[in-house]
C-alpha cells in the first residue's frame, strides 16, 4: 500500500512538472499570447517558404493546421474549442458559415492588396462586396487523362466520352458526392445545382451505367495512381491535374464545355479567431502580387491575382487549361449551398452509386 501511495505521489509530481515545462516551452516559442496566428488550410495548399517570410516580416508565429474537406473544417469551427484565425473554405461553405454566423466581417482598409484581384473574382454571389472573404485560389473540375494509355484513335473532349465502352476499367473518380453527382447532372444537360429528385434519379441511372468503366473511387491518391500509370483517365480538380502533369508531361487535362464546376477557395476570419489584427495582416500579405506568384508556382492551382500573373512563367499563365478565358468559365457553374436535406440526398445517391455492382 505504501509503495502504491508513493508511486501515486510521484506520478502527480511528474505531471505537474511536465505541465510547467510545456508551458515554458510554448512561451519560448511564442505559442501563447497574441503573437501567434493559427491558419487552418487544405493540405499541401501553401508554399511553406511563404509562411516563413511572413513570420520574418511581421514577427508573428504561424501555427499551421490542415483539413481535407469543407465539411470537416466547418464542423471543427462550429464546435468551438479551437482558435483558428484564418480558414480557407470554398464558396458554398462560406454561404453556410454566413448563415450560421461563424464569420467576422473583413476590414477592407487593412487589406489594400485586394486591389490586385481580378474583377472577375470579386463581388460574387456567395459573398457580395467580399464582406467576409477574399479569393485565394480558383479552379475547375475536369478530366485528367494519359493519351498514351487511351485506346487507339480515342480522344477525350467531354463527359460523354467517359461512358465509351473502350474505357472499361480505366477511370478513377474523385470520392466526392457533389463532384460526381454534378458530373452526372452536367452530362444529362442539367445544372449541377439541380435538386429535382426526378433529375437526380435519372442521374443515378446514368452513373450506374458508368460502373463497368470505373476502376476505383479514391481521394488524394488519384495523383499517385495516375502518375504510376494505374489508370488512363481520372475525374478531378484542376490543381491535381497540374500536379500530375508536373510529374508526367504526357498527361492532359480538359474541362468539358457542356458544363462543369468552377470553384473558389477563399480566406475568411472565423469567429474562433483570437488575433484579428494578425489575420488581416496575413491576408494582405498573401495577396501581395510577388508573394502570390511564388505561392501559385508552388501550389499550381490558378490565382485570381492579376498582378501576380506578371511575375509568373509565361507558359503557366498562358495555359488555357488552367487559366480558361471568360468564354469557358461563363459556361461553368459554382456550387450553391443546397441546404442540409438536399446535400443528404446527394450523398445518399452517391452511396447507392458506390454500392452498385454490374
Amino acid at each position, binding site marked *: 500500500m505504501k509503495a502504491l501511495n508513493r508511486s501515486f505521489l510521484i506520478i502527480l509530481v511528474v505531471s505537474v512538472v511536465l505541465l510547467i515545462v510545456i508551458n515554458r516551452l510554448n512561451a519560448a516559442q511564442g505559442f501563447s499570447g497574441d503573437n501567434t496566428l493559427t491558419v487552418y488550410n487544405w493540405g499541401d495548399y501553401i508554399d511553406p517558404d511563404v509562411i516563413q517570410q511572413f513570420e520574418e516580416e511581421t514577427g508573428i508565429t504561424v501555427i499551421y493546421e490542415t483539413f481535407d474537406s469543407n465539411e470537416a473544417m466547418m464542423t471543427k469551427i462550429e464546435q468551438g474549442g479551437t482558435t483558428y484565425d484564418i480558414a480557407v473554405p470554398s464558396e458554398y461553405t462560406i454561404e453556410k458559415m454566413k448563415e450560421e454566423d461563424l464569420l467576422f466581417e473583413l476590414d477592407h482598409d487593412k487589406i489594400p492588396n485586394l486591389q490586385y484581384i481580378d474583377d472577375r473574382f470579386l463581388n460574387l454571389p456567395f459573398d457580395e462586396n467580399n464582406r467576409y472573404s477574399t479569393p485565394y485560389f480558383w479552379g475547375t473540375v475536369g478530366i485528367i487523362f494519359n493519351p498514351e494509355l487511351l485506346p487507339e484513335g480515342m480522344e477525350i473532349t467531354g463527359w460523354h466520352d467517359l461512358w465509351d465502352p473502350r474505357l472499361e476499367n480505366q477511370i478513377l473518380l474523385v470520392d466526392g458526392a457533389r463532384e460526381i453527382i454534378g458530373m452526372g447532372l452536367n452530362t444529362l444537360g442539367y445544372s449541377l445545382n439541380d435538386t429535382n429528385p426526378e433529375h437526380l434519379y435519372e442521374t443515378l441511372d446514368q452513373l450506374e451505367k458508368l460502373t463497368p468503366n470505373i476502376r476505383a473511387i479514391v481521394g488524394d491518391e488519384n495523383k499517385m495512381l495516375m502518375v*504510376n500509370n494505374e489508370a488512363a483517365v481520372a475525374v478531378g480538380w484542376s490543381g491535381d491535374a497540374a500536379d500530375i502533369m508536373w510529374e508526367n508531361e504526357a498527361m492532359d487535362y480538359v474541362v468539358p464545355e457542356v458544363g462543369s464546376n468552377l470553384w473558389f477557395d477563399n480566406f475568411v476570419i472565423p469567429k474562433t479567431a483570437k488575433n484579428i489584427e494578425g489575420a488581416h495582416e496575413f491576408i494582405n500579405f498573401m495577396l501581395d502580387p510577388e508573394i502570390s506568384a511564388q505561392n501559385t508556382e508552388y501550389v499550381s492551382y490558378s490565382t485570381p491575382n492579376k498582378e501576380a500573373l506578371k511575375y509568373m512563367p509565361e507558359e503557366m499563365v498562358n495555359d488555357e487549361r488552367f487559366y480558361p478565358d471568360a468564354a469557358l468559365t461563363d459556361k461553368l457553374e459554382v456550387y450553391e449551398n443546397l441546404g442540409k436535406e438536399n446535400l443528404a440526398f446527394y450523398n445518399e445517391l452517391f452511396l447507392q452509386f458506390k454500392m452498385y455492382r454490374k
Partner: protein
Amino acid sequence: MQNKTFRNLFMLPYALWIIIFVIAPILLVVYFSFFDINGNFSLTNYKNFFTATYLQMTLNSFWYAFLITVISLLIAYPTAYILTRTKHKQLWLLLIIVPSWINLLLKAYAFIGIFGTHGAANRFLEWAGIGSRQLLFTDFSFVFVAVYIFIPFMILPIFNALDKLNPSLLYAASDLGASKWTTFRRVIFPLTLDGVKSGCQVVFIPALSLFMLTRLIAGNRVITLGTAIEQQFLVTQNWGMGATIAVFLIIIMVGFMALTSIRRRGV
C-alpha cells in the same frame, strides 16, 4: 478502514475513465440516433436503415468480416501450432508481432504500390508465367490486406492457449490409442477453443467497421457500414443517421460477443 478508503480512491480514475470514455459515448450515440437531419426527435433514421441500401451494406460488412475472420483463423491456427513446437518460440512470436507496430495507413499505402499494375506482385506473376492482372481495387486485395493486418491478433491468443496446453494430456491421448487427427479433434482443439474465440472476437469486430482500407485498397468498390458512418458524419453532417448505423454496429458486435463469449466451466 483506511485501506478501504484508499482502495476507493484508487478506483476513482478507472471509474471516471469508464464513465467518460465508454459509457457516455455509447449513450450519446444512442441519443443522437433519435434525431433527424434538422435536429427534430424522430425515428426516421431507423426507418431509413431498413431500406435496401443499408441492409445490403450490412450484409456486405458481415460477409467481408466473416471472410476475413475465417481466413485469418485458417492461417493462424496452424501457424500458432507450429510456433509452439519451435525452439525459439518467443523470438518467432516477436517476429510475427513486429509488423503490427507499423502504422496501418503506411501499410495500406505500401500495398497500393505492391499490388499496382506495375507493382512487385504483378512482376512476380509475369515471371511465373501467369501474366499480370488487376489486383488493386478488387475483393481479393481487400481481403488479403485485411487478413495481413489482423493475423497477429489472431495468432496471439491461439498461441497462448496452445502453449498452456498440458503435454501430458497429449501423451495420455496417444497412450490410449488416439490417432494424431483424433487427438487434435478431441483434445487439442476443444482445449484451445477459448483462444480461438477471443481471436475471432478481436478480428471480427474491427473488421466489421473497416473503412480506410475500403477506399485505399478496394477503391470504394467495397462499401461497408464503416464507410457509411464516415460519410454521414464528415460529409453529410447527418449525425443522427451516422449514430443510427453505429447503434446497429454495436448491436451486431454485442451479439457476436455473446455468441463467442467464454463461459467458465466449474473447476
